[in-house]
């Protein structure tokens, strides 16, 4: 089955990847880490990156479903 996954980047990570979002089409089961690799072929995932699926924090081995929104961002600095 072909799945369509929205990928979003925030803050300094958005600056370094040079985009705020991607659409990734995948065939079959896939993890958050694999989504990163597909969207950023030439760039290793930074060590201190945080990941969320549908606005909840997840481990990068979390599996992604059709229609999910996957987000990557650096450590948060609010407050």
């Amino acid at each position, binding site marked *: 089955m072909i799945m369509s996954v929205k990928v979003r980047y*925030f*803050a*300094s990570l958005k600056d370094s990847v040079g985009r705020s979002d991607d659409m990734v089409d995948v065939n079959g089961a896939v993890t958050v880490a694999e989504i990163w690799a597909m969207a950023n072929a030439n760039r290793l995932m930074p060590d201190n990156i945080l990941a969320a699926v549908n*606005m*909840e924090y997840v481990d990068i081995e979390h599996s992604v479903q059709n229609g999910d929104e996957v987000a990557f961002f650096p450590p*948060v600095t*609010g*407050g």
Partner: protein
Amino acid sequence: MIKISADLFDPWHEVVAYQDSAKHWTGKFGATNVFVGTMRDFNDGDAVTGMVLEHYPGMTEKQLEDIVKQATRDWHLLDALVVHRVGEIKPNEPIVLVAVWASHRGDAFDAGRQIMEALKNKAPFWKKERLPNGDERWVEHNTDGYLRSPKNDMSTILG
């Protein structure tokens, strides 16, 4: 209640307005703890002339709701209010307000601090500072608010 504000807000006015609107716990709260984080005009030794606060609309609110719910499970609270600025901020403007109302002060202090620390660790906000020379830089990480101050550590060591 959770509020994300793109405009300047007055934290003390927010506290009064919220408290006055909550007639169902008038007379029931003995302890209010309020934390306000304000933009300083320096950071990491440099003068800072302004800041842009980015967030992740939807996730930010969701995380803040979860943080307040957790505090309400962990402590005896009557209510809590969290307001956070986003967008362009100038020095001396408030960034964040965390207010909690409880019957007793132990719960108020502990819950307020727990919410504030969780917000600093989990709520998706990011600060970009503007320096006097026009440069911008992303703040890389938040410090731990439970660390004791060097002053206190010294006085403990030196007796």
